[in-house]
């Protein structure tokens, strides 16, 4: 079995998380990805020493997971020699991925117009904060600006309440998933037509897409969708606190058969036929009352006791996990949603796997991320540069 993108070459001119994750998806699927970094410091994420109060332990897990299996080459595109090397790479590449700002790309001579002239078959994938047009097109963007600007953040909470702090990289990775879908559309089109093109999405656009059902419904009704309080939310699609201050999420269907099953599962059979809850319509009417009953009920057992009690039931429910607990979740392990990687000098680490299954051409989680500029010389030699050329470029500072 081969990976689906074997033989595809990607030039990665990305920083932070949105761009790097996009090309990491391609690397997992067998593409050769050459990451171009500034000789002065490289990708800013190389220096991250912790996330949200959780220190890096042994390896920079954040940087690593979106760079692994790539090659790193340093090039300072302010130097003509470096720019020429970049162009040589692009001539032979299938895909170029970037999330630098538009103005910077033009100044460095790696904008779409320039590169597509050089290689008309090139797929030029661009991630921005705010889109290709409009007054905000040159403004910086980070994931939270997309989440905030799309309206999504307000629907996590009740009206007027401070929205939650956003988990690191969650937004970037979602936008990257959308961009890489666009890349594959373009690659498929090129396979059929021979033509490359520009593929673009923004953090704002990607988040509006993920919130599209809330956006469309709110616009039509001219009424904003907010989060709802625990008491207001449907009793059977809600989370309940357990004895040990943990939570169980239930997502039981509205139908009466599911209700009956649920009553049996949690030991409230006596409510099955209760006129307040027996039929769907009355359950909906008396949702608050049911929420209070379930609040009390779930407090009688710890989360792990509830897991044991619910394990055999096939209606939708889940424990609200903590991140570290995933490593011992049998469902996670059996599906290879976490895989073990061996880090030289660190030992074994568990990391999130490919998490999409392709029966004939599965992806793979490859070895760790490259050191800054680890492959610069190798790549230049492949392009036909001599050692003399390489030394000259080092001396002027175009490469590390």
């Amino acid at each position, binding site marked *: 079995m081969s990976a689906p993108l074997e033989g595809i070459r990607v030039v990665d001119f990305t920083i932070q998380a949105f761009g790097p994750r996009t090309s990491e998806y391609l690397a997992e699927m067998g593409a050769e990805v050459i990451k171009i970094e500034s000789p002065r410091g490289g990708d800013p994420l190389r220096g991250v020493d912790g996330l949200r109060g959780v220190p890096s332990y042994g390896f920079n897990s954040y940087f690593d997971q979106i760079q692994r299996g790539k090659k790193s080459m340093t090039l300072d595109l302010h130097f003509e020699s470096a720019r020429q090397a970049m162009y040589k790479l692009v001539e032979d590449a299938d895909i170029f991925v970037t999330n630098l700002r538009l103005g910077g790309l033009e100044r460095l001579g790696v904008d779409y117009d320039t590169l597509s002239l050089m290689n008309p078959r090139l797929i030029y994938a661009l991630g921005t904060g705010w889109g290709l047009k409009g007054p905000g097109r040159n403004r910086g963007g980070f994931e*939270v600006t997309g989440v*905030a600007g799309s309206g999504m953040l307000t629907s996590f909470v009740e009206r007027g309440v401070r929205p939650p702090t956003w988990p690191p990289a969650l937004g970037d990775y979602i936008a990257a998933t959308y961009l890489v879908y666009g890349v594959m559309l373009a690659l498929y089109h090129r396979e059929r037509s021979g033509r490359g093109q520009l593929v673009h999405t923004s953090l704002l656009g990607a988040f509006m897409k993920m919130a599209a059902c809330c956006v469309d419904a709110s616009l039509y009704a001219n009424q904003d969708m907010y989060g709802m309080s625990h008491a207001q939310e449907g009793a059977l699609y809600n989370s309940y606190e357990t004895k040990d201050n943990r939570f169980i999420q239930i997502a039981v269907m509205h139908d009466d058969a599911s209700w009956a099953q649920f009553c049996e599962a949690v030991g409230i059979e006596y409510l099955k036929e209760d006129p307040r809850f027996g039929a769907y319509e009355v359950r909906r009417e008396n949702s608050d009352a049911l929420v209070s009953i379930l609040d009390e009920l779930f407090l009688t057992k710890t989360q792990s006791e509830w897991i044991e009690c619910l394990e055999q039931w096939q209606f939708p429910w889940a424990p609200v996990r903590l991140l570290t607990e995933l490593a011992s979740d049998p469902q996670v392990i059996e599906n290879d949603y976490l895989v073990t990687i061996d880090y030289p000098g660190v030992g074994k680490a568990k990391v999130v796997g490919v998490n999409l299954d392709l029966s004939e051409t599965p992806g793979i989680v490859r070895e760790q991320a490259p050191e800054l500029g680890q492959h610069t010389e190798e790549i230049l030699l492949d392009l036909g540069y001599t050692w003399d050329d390489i030394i000259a470029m080092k001396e002027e500072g175009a490469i590390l």
Partner: protein
Amino acid sequence: MSMPLEGIKVLDLTVYAFGPQTTAYLAEMGAEVIKIENPQTGEPIRWIDAMREVPVGKFKAYFEQTNRGKKSIAMDLHHEKARDVAYKLIEKSDIFVTNLRMGGLERLGMDYETLSRVNPRLIYAIGTGWGLKGPARNRGAFEATGFARSALVSGLVEPGSRPPLCPPAFGDYTAATFLAYSIMLALFHRERTGEGQMVHVSLLGACMKVMSACIDTSIAAGKDMFGLPHEGDGALYSMYQTKDKRWIQLAVVQDYRGWVEFCQAMGLEHLNDDPRFNSFESRRENNVALISILDEVFLTRNQSEWIERLEKYQFPWAPVRHFTELASDTQILENDYIVSLDDPEAGEVKVVGTTIDLSKTPGQIRSKAPELGQHTEEILLELGYTWDDIIVMKEQSTIL
């Protein structure tokens, strides 16, 4: 300009949001999508009358979003004749997409083994709740269970707090994006080799993939990452309340070199040279003091006044929007992130666009979702069935 998936035929046996959004992505890009619906129940989302208190009205935004541009064939796959129709359609299809439970698919004869024998070039795409293996593989799931068990929601709140309910369909659409990407990988592979395959994504796996920065870091450190209180955030990467109880999100990264510019934007010029704040290190040390200063400043103006004032600055910031405001946001309109559609019943409606730009083969938001079984007869006639056959099938309730 043509669309990238023109000529591609998709058979859609999906319900709710995860599966339907996957094929909606393909429909936007030009694929012909035939949706199989049960004649008795139809797609359950057809009947939703409100979401989180936002009423549906004449325009079923939620259903339209995930089903527009598709054809509907209403047939009951419990009947042998309907199954024959499905197999005939499979012979001519490139892609089959489903998110029914695996047990049900086997009972209906629509599992991967059966369909790949009918058409070895078929790409069989399946979305599940929990993965193809493991003790929960047959359990039902909705996005909330994926958010819970992947620990995504734990990353949104402080330890011990009740996790928020995520915006409707956000998780389904995220997982659908990942599945649509997988389909494109398989389609590309088939174009090069002629080989079809099964592709699979689960809600659990997709949520873990987009949370992987937090997961990998937490597992490596053996310490869970949670949401932070306002004072725990970086002062320049936080959300501030305005005079009118709205919010402005700042997303200025730590090594930002434009402190003086930032002070000017905020009207805090007197802090230009303040040693507590004028370098990255000192700002980090005096984070809490800076947050209280910014808390006070932001409360002096309404959100719209802040937008006006900040508009010209290119550092990353965003208003925390409500959904209904998106339709008048210049940035959104100029990028066609919201487009107008003509709905036969509701008139002009505004909906989220494709929000992904393909310069040579753009997608298109097509109006409108089909009525239940709108294309049943048309599709059967194309397959070579006669009107007599169709009448018999109707009499037997095989079709609607």
